[in-house]
């Protein structure tokens, strides 16, 4: 993921006279907005707990990204302990690159010390792999926070895990060591996937129109 061109615009201008293009662009914006709204409605509706505070959390932007992460793992077939090991190693490699790129760190609002703490070490990597091996999809909450470090704070991850557990989207078990291991029930991924499928099909129709 080279960052040399990221953060720089193309510098080109929009052709405002292209009426048909503008009309299609507007349809696209409408579809994207509809999909986000549909996600909120569906994720709230799928919750086993209709408490208003919880619903507010489920409607939040981080919840959308949280669901997307679990969807990506499932859709990309990250299933076995070997797969999660490859993911952790790629994650470490990415964070190592990021810590050497001051401009990018500044751009995405992350500090070196936080990134370094999110790297899987000889202590945390075996735990990640073992949890996944014991039960595919099972991940220590701290390790989940590590994988999501670039898109949300550890505290946001914690809140989402607690909320998603109450909603019935995650199994959340306390280990004898006082840590929490979480595992998706599959509902978040299903909601996210259905919304994306609907969006894609509607966009295809737009293209044909």
């Amino acid at each position, binding site marked *: 993921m080279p960052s040399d061109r990221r953060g720089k615009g193309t510098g080109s201008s929009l052709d405002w006279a292209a009426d048909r293009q503008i009309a299609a662009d507007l349809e696209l914006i409408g579809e994207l907005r509809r999909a986000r709204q549909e996600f909120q409605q569906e994720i709230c509706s799928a919750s086993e707990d209709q408490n208003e*505070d919880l619903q507010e959390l489920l409607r939040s932007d981080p919840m959308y990204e949280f669901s997307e992460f679990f969807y990506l793992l499932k859709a990309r077939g990250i299933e076995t302990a070997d797969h999660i090991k490859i993911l952790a190693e*790629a994650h470490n490699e*990415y964070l190592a690159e990021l810590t050497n790129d001051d401009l990018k760190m500044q751009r995405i609002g*992350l*500090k070196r010390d936080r990134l370094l703490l999110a790297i899987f070490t000889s202590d945390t990597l075996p735990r990640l792999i073992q949890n996944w091996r014991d039960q595919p999809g099972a991940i220590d909450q701290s390790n989940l926070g590590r994988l999501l470090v670039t898109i*949300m704070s550890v505290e*946001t991850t*914690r809140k989402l895990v607690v909320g998603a557990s109450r909603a019935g989207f995650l199994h959340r078990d306390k280990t004898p060591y006082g840590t929490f291991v979480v595992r998706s029930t599959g509902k978040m991924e299903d909601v996210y996937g259905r919304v994306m499928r609907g969006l894609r099909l509607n966009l295809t129709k737009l293209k044909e129109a």
Partner: protein
Amino acid sequence: MRKLFVLLSFISSLLLQAPCDAKSSLGPSFSKAELSIINRNQTLRSLVKTDPKTVRKALDLMQRNHIGSRSEVPGGDGDLQSRDELTADPDLDELERSNPEAARDLFLLIKRVATEKNKK
């Protein structure tokens, strides 16, 4: 230090935008729930002794953004699990927003992993 700068920047912008939200002109007071937020955020903990008004404004800002659990009810999220030990300012960190570039990087990272696992 950067966190303090971010916090002070937020507060400066608040001062320009809206009247003071401090609950008392005699000096800020903090509820039990707010004190627990202060106690678990290192920056707020150190700031409260020297500049409690700034802490008051930070808490008001966090409340408007639904940041920092104020739940004192059993079963609220605060008592459901221990907080992560990795972060000094868990609630202040939430003021930092997600970034599209980082989200796309994560998407591409998982895509790359899927390609690699299929090769093996």
